[in-house]
């Protein structure tokens, strides 16, 4: 390299040093059924025969009772925000532009909340108890993925009182 060129070429002061772990993940029987439900734009949960808790996504065994789970149950696409956070920080691989909201959504009839995104309103309008419904991607774009629900949007119904969702936070 000539001295003239050298003057404009900067020193190497950093290096990319990614840490990468490559897995093949197996979803298990219940999560597989849930993901197949997503492809059909249905939300599939499962009921514990002992405590009657409805889990979504479904599990093979009830984490409280330890017994095998019972029947499958298709859940409605409406629910209530129990907790949420506003994401303000950009990071690599992010799909939405901050600020956006991540929320735990307690679907009507379910006993555990589903973690997802909230869209269709200003982030400052999101609150605990807010009623929301799933906004699906088009049928042709439905995948074996939770991303088949694009996000949850406000329904405009009155909020659910905190006393009704307190047990599920």
């Amino acid at each position, binding site marked *: 390299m000539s001295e003239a060129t050298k003057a404009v070429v900067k020193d190497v002061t950093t*290096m990319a040093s990614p840490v990468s772990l*490559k*897995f093949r993940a197996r979803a298990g029987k219940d999560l597989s059924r849930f993901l197949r439900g997503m492809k059909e734009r249905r939300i599939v949960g499962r009921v514990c025969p002992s405590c009657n808790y409805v889990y979504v996504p479904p599990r093979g065994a009830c984490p409280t009772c330890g017994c095998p789970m019972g029947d499958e149950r298709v859940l409605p696409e409406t629910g209530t925000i129990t907790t949420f956070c506003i994401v303000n920080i950009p990071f690599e691989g992010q799909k939405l532009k901050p600020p956006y909201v991540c929320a735990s959504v307690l679907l009507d009839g379910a006993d555990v909340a589903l973690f997802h995104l909230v869209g269709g309103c200003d982030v400052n309008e999101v609150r605990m108890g807010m009623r929301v419904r799933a906004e699906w991607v088009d049928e042709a774009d439905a995948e074996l993925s939770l991303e088949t629900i694009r996000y949850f949007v406000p329904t405009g119904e009155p909020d659910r009182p905190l006393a009704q969702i307190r047990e599920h936070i």
Partner: protein
Amino acid sequence: MQQPIDGVLEAPYVMEYTYRRSLGPVMSAFFTALRDGRLLGARTASGKLVVPPLEWDPETGAAIAGLEPAAEEGVVTAATWVAAPEPRHLLQEPFAYALIQLDGASTAMLHAVACASLEACPVGTRVKLVWSESRTGSLRDIRCFEPVN
């Protein structure tokens, strides 16, 4: 996402932290020199040449005395065979990973030796450095080493 016969879904799952680290004065000089087609080692107070350089004398922990050009030829001190290279490897055809002690250096550096088999790269083999055509300031700026006949 695959759908195997047993009905359980499977998918690749990659967990990656996309770090970029700052190099500091010693490693910055080392990688800048690599980009410019020069190999540097660190001279320690006791007179040893550490290649690739370390920021500190491995024996005393003292700061190194300075950086100096290292030889581009040396000797294999240990080697192992990579029969099925992965995309992340330096060479895409089978090669030897070897510890190479460059002439005048007191330590050995790990790099790839392009050769036909492990038998072609026994301990004591003389090798020389082959530069990559396009260099960016990484250890890949050294394409590989090759045996000298």
